[in-house]
């Protein structure tokens, strides 16, 4: 290791190679409560520098763990086997905006919200909107195929990736894809890296597809005295042929926590709230849709439906939605957030069963999420310092996954597998898929130095 560090410092300069305990602690965690120290944190500033780091790591058989802003919720960027924490945050430039073809080429470390602000100023739109868009990078979003509220209508991160620059496990640089929308020359290597969680290569640049910015938006908030009614309403809206831009569900504890954090005057006497947004370039159609949505909500038991009257009200509602997950920390020192998806018709059943698990184990589970695409985030609240509680949490997680699989859903809609869900992979994928995936990993990273111990069991 020492020799490797000396080499890295020689080539990159000491400022980009951090070895103090303090620096290693700073690069030891992500958005979960897990943690492990890397031997060294490296902050490259170009694809060439990344390639050099990976080459040297390969020579020394040392693990390389790519890292964006470490907002991940699966432990995927934690260097559990030590080695190099490779931070992409300084590679945050916008390389080329092609307004005519509506594409943008960026470095992987750019913060998603920064990219969004940049293109929106120019009338363009990058739709994928993980709630963590201010604290996650495009590289991390691609590596986890991040989704968000808008993905119901606009699709997930992977739908916007046209091409990638990837440093492979031996230090070679691979270019995939291009500006052409249709491209069937060879295998679709771009897709291979989408969702690969840093185990197949280090993404250093991405060519992204943009769309024209929808000109009109309406956002409504519907209050439901009954959680069951709220979850039924989700499918009722979609079955009516409306595709809202977003359709978000929050249960009562989620509402209480946000209200405590933000004082927005949200109702504290309902079991659930839906946030629904319609958008498009035809104002009348957008308004008509939100009115139809409001009607369906009322028919299905909503006590009140309010449409945001100004951009500020709307921004506030979204700020509220984005802070649900972190604001839960007000209730208990730890939370374990799951990310299951189920078919739309199964949402009410899934919600019922999860609440039942919560009651049976005596620990609160908060439910919120992108209900419109069946993606729920049940969060278990607990205190990890109490080993007995932790034991309960572990069984609860297993049961939540069972619920998802029994209802023909899956373990993770967007947060990814990392280490936390690895034990459940076999059950979720089956032996054939797992075997194929193992061979892919073997082909691309025969030395197993790229983010070892992640994803595949």
């Amino acid at each position, binding site marked *: 290791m020492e020799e490797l560090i000396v080499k890295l410092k020689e080539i990159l300069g000491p400022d980009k190679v951090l070895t103090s305990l303090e620096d290693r602690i700073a690069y030891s965690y992500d958005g979960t409560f897990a943690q492990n120290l890397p031997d060294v944190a490296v902050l490259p500033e170009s694809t060439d520098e990344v390639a050099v780091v990976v080459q040297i790591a390969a020579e020394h058989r040392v693990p390389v763990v790519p890292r964006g802003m470490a907002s991940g919720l699966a432990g995927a960027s934690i260097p559990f086997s030590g080695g190099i924490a490779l931070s992409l945050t300084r590679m945050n430039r916008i390389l080329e905006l092609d307004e005519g073809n509506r594409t943008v080429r960026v470095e992987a470390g750019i913060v998603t919200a920064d990219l969004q602000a940049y293109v929106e100023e120019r009338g363009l739109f990058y739709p994928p909107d993980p709630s963590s868009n201010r604290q996650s990078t495009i590289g991390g979003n691609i590596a986890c195929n991040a989704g968000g509220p808008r993905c119901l209508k606009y699709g997930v991160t992977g739908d916007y990736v046209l091409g990638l620059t990837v440093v492979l496990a031996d230090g070679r640089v691979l270019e995939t894809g291009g500006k052409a929308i249709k491209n069937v020359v060879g295998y679709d290597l771009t897709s291979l890296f989408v969702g690969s969680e840093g185990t197949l290569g280090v993404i250093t640049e991405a060519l992204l597809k943009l769309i024209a910015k929808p000109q009109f938006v309406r956002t409504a908030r519907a209050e439901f005295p009954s959680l069951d009614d709220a979850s039924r309403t989700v499918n009722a809206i979609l079955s009516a042929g409306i595709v809202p831009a977003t359709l978000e569900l929050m249960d009562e504890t989620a509402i209480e926590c946000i209200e405590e*954090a933000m004082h927005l005057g949200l109702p504290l006497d309902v079991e659930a709230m839906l946030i629904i947004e319609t958008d498009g370039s035809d104002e009348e159609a957008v308004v008509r849709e939100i009115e139809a949505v409001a009607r369906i909500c009322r028919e299905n038991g909503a006590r009140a439906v309010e449409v945001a009257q100004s951009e500020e009200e709307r921004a506030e509602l979204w700020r509220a939605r984005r802070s649900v997950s972190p*604001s839960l920390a007000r209730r208990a020192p730890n939370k374990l957030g799951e990310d299951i998806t189920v078919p739309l018709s199964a949402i009410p059943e899934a919600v019922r069963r999860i609440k039942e698990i919560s009651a049976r184990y005596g620990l609160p589970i908060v439910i919120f999420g992108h209900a419109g695409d069946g993606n729920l985030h049940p969060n278990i609240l607990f205190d990890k310092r109490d080993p007995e509680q932790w034991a309960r949490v572990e069984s609860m997680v297993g049961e939540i996954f069972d619920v998802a699989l029994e209802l023909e859903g899956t373990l993770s809609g967007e947060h990814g597998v990392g280490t936390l869900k690895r034990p459940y992979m076999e059950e979720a994928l089956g032996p054939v898929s797992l075997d194929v995936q193992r061979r892919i990993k073997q082909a691309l990273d025969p030395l197993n130095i790229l983010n070892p111990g992640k994803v595949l069991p």
Partner: protein
Amino acid sequence: MTNNDIRKDEYLHCIRCGLCLSTCPTYQLTLKETDSPRARVALLRAMREGLLERPTDYTAAQYFRCLLCGACTFICPSGVTVDRLLELTRREMAELGLMPHPLVALNERVVEHHNISGEPNENRLMWAENLPEPPSGIGRERAEVVYFVGCVSALFPRSYRVAQSFVEVLERGGVDYALLGEQEWCCGYPMAINGGLDQARETIRHNVEAVRARGARLVVTTCPSCFYFWKHTYPVALGEELGFEVVHSTEFLADLLEAGRLPLRPDLPEQVVTYHDPCDLGRKGGVFDAPRRILAAIPGVTLVEMEENQEGSHCCGGGGNLESFDPEMSRAIAARRVRQAAGTGARVVVSACQQCERTLFNAARTERIRVRVKDITEIVLDALESRDQ
């Protein structure tokens, strides 16, 4: 800043979501996790949990490389009062003997000379010497209002103008005020954030007595840090009510203007300005409206806001004594803020803090950014009818 009521295990409430990275000026500058609030809290936790057993100078440096600007606290969705936690950790570092040398020296100067510059405290009124007439507040034994000038405006010639403009406005408004002169001691804030709240208690007691002796009902400060410390820490540190009110000069001036006590010139020029919220005044002290009311009351002034304003304001780079510890980082942060200001199209950046004014001014000059930097008291003074009219 009631440091004492913070919960011991508050660091556990940091769930490492990373949102604070998006507002932290030090992280935004270096894009290195170690310079982020999340890492600073993680280090504290590592010390508590034994992962980092023996803190070193480098550990301590992480806490002194922070502006204590509170942007992290404001944005943290899980309610961690990060800046207070970091301030407390500074104190812990000081107890371990790990305070950086320039800050030790600063504390010693304050204890010995009762001011941050280390010169004789009699010099506290030198700024008044080249005024056309000596301020009426000098030597006054009883007064309704005490103007607490603060070390920087009193002792750093570059910032004399703030004190000079403010007393000039007080005179024009016919305010019955007193200056404490050499009986004014450093408010104690710099010591407290360098880990020496206990050392600061003597100075706090002294200042409060000096104001009480004048029978004042109000203390007004031009310095936001003095304001914040007087208002929020003094009563807690002494464990008693002060018996008088504490306001910032912007609140005082806004009231004077709105009450019509300051006659304005009829021929005021049009000017486009932007306003920089000082951290201690705005986000930490809760004063956002008063300076904006002042600007609105002056004909011809158009205010354009920067994107990061009010609670979301971006520190000028001068917070947390960073300037003494890492001047280069402080300068770079100031440059970022001045660029934001210039980006609004305004030709003037107005602040309400002598420290902000100084850091922003220097940055504008070294970066050759074409905006003028002014303290709000100067703007008010410029708008008043001249004395002889």
